[in-house]
């Protein structure tokens, strides 16, 4: 018997409110989507002809089921008046946003959107919108999550979301490659992508006439201006359904190749690829460190690991091999780009993100809560802070207490901290032109500061180096 509670246990997702045909909500630890009747009909048809199954097998959409259980459906209908039908989605462990992606991640997200659109076109359907926020990376694969975006449009020869697609995927990549814009600035500044006027203005008039920009930037801009003048473009209901998808197919395939070429042509600086040469580690010390971290992960079996300052992703892979889902974070875009490219060749359940821990992604959009800040989304059983502390101390100017508090907020349970002493080569290198404020920084001080909020599980010096690994567990109210 359903209890008549005044407060529903459903929690609407902040970012899911613009589409009139449905929205996403969580209920406990399950994720559902309420959909209206036309959407339900359409998805049922796609299920019937096998498209649904195909999409799920290819990992183009997340695992999804129609809610069949009558009792559950009844409860959901009560909690969400006006909606009769519900889908349940697999829960995505790591939510990332376009401003946290690297170049290839954005290109692959665009390509996946086009894949879905091309397949839908063959079945007389299309996507209502093509925002980059429709894509999430699930087990390393870009996945189209907004199923209520599927529709049967009036015209199949024209894609109404193409303008949005270009603003969300093509323009940022063009600006990145041609003008050196970073993706984070682009997406944080405009939640819908940058308007075409502004994009065109970033290029000189001669460049705008070259083929690569002419069709996708210049012509739409001219036609937009022409259409606005004297109300030449009128909005009227179409009488006849247009079925011919050939032109659109050709165009989308062309865009697909273009996105791939833009991303492929990006050459990441191997900044920290030199790291291994400059690094003060002997191979022996590196192996010892890996063994220690592996042992700890084996003992504690975290479900989700957050690897801070992941660099080449060695420790992310280590954690993934031990059954964890990993979020690999680094402030260096190129490191994430290299990691992502490597993951395409050697897949693993790792989600890379470009995050500067001293300036992590803020909350943006409506009420600054539509897209949650990084710190709210970060939710790991175990945080790896390896070869990180000296960067935060020196480059980011954070105090030990500040670092401790941030790491406390990021982890649910455990923390693996590598202590780097001031006479370490890497530490010295960061401090080359800076005033030495770290005279008092010792292992003892570090231990003392962290012990105020963490419980020390064990401390092991790394053989063959001056560094040490400290394994911590968050103090709960019970421990204090």
């Amino acid at each position: 018997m359903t209890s008549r509670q005044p407060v529903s246990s459903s929690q609407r997702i902040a970012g899911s409110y613009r589409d009139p045909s449905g929205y996403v909500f969580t209920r406990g630890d399950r994720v559902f989507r309420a959909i209206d009747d036309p959407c339900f009909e359409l998805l049922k048809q796609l299920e019937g002809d096998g498209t649904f199954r195909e999409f799920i097998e290819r990992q183009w959409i997340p695992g999804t089921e129609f809610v069949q259980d009558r009792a559950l459906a009844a409860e959901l209908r009560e909690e969400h008046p006006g909606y009769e039908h519900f889908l349940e989605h697999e829960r995505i462990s790591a939510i990332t946003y376009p401003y946290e992606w690297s170049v290839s991640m954005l290109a692959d997200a665009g390509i996946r959107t086009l894949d879905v659109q091309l397949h839908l076109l063959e079945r007389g359907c299309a996507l209502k919108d093509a925002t980059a926020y429709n894509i999430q990376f699930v087990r390393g694969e870009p996945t189209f999550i907004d199923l209520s975006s599927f529709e049967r449009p009036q015209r199949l020869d024209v894609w109404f979301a193409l303008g949005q697609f270009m603003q969300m995927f093509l323009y940022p990549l063009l600006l990145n490659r041609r003008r050196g814009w970073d993706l984070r600035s682009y997406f944080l500044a405009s939640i819908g992508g940058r308007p075409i006027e502004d994009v065109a203005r970033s290029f000189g008039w001669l460049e705008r006439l070259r083929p690569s920009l002419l069709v996708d930037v210049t012509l739409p801009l001219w036609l937009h201006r022409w259409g606005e003048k004297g109300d030449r473009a009128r909005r009227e209901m179409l009488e006849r359904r247009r079925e011919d998808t050939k032109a659109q197919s050709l165009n989308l395939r062309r865009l697909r190749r273009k996105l791939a070429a833009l991303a492929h042509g990006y050459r990441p600086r191997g900044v920290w690829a030199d790291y291994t040469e400059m690094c003060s580690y002997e191979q022996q010390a590196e192996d010892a460190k890996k063994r220690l971290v592996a042992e700890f992960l084996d003992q504690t079996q975290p479900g989700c690991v957050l690897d801070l300052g992941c660099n080449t992703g060695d420790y992310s892979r280590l954690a993934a091999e031990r059954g964890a889902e990993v979020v690999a974070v680094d402030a260096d875009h190129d490191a994430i780009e290299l990691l992502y490219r490597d993951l395409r060749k050697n897949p693993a359940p790792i989600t890379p993100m470009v995050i500067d821990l001293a300036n992590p992604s803020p909350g943006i959009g409506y009420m600054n809560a539509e897209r949650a800040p990084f710190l709210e989304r970060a939710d790991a059983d175990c945080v790896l802070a390896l070869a990180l502390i000296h960067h935060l101390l020196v480059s980011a100017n954070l105090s030990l207490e500040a670092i401790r508090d941030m790491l406390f907020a990021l982890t649910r349970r455990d923390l693996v901290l590598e202590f780097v002493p001031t006479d370490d080569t890497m530490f010295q290198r960061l401090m080359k032109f800076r005033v030495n404020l770290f005279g008092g920084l010792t292992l003892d001080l570090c231990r003392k500061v962290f012990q105020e909020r963490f419980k020390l599980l064990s401390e092991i010096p790394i053989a063959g180096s001056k560094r040490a690994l400290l394994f911590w567990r968050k103090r709960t109210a019970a421990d204090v």
Partner: protein
Amino acid sequence: MFVLTPVAYIDPMSGAIILQVLIAGTIGCVAFFRRSIKAFLVKVFHIGRDTDEEGAEKAAPEDPAA
């Protein structure tokens, strides 16, 4: 002269839409007059049976399923 459906809930870029309508129209015309164009090209320029445009359409872009 140009029509836009009001069904979309996002704000479609009118320029992109007009361009697609034009391209769709052009390709439609070209398809309609294909034989005449082909005959013309063969007659005047002595190009072989495979015109450029047929060749371009046949050079199929990679299948997204691949």
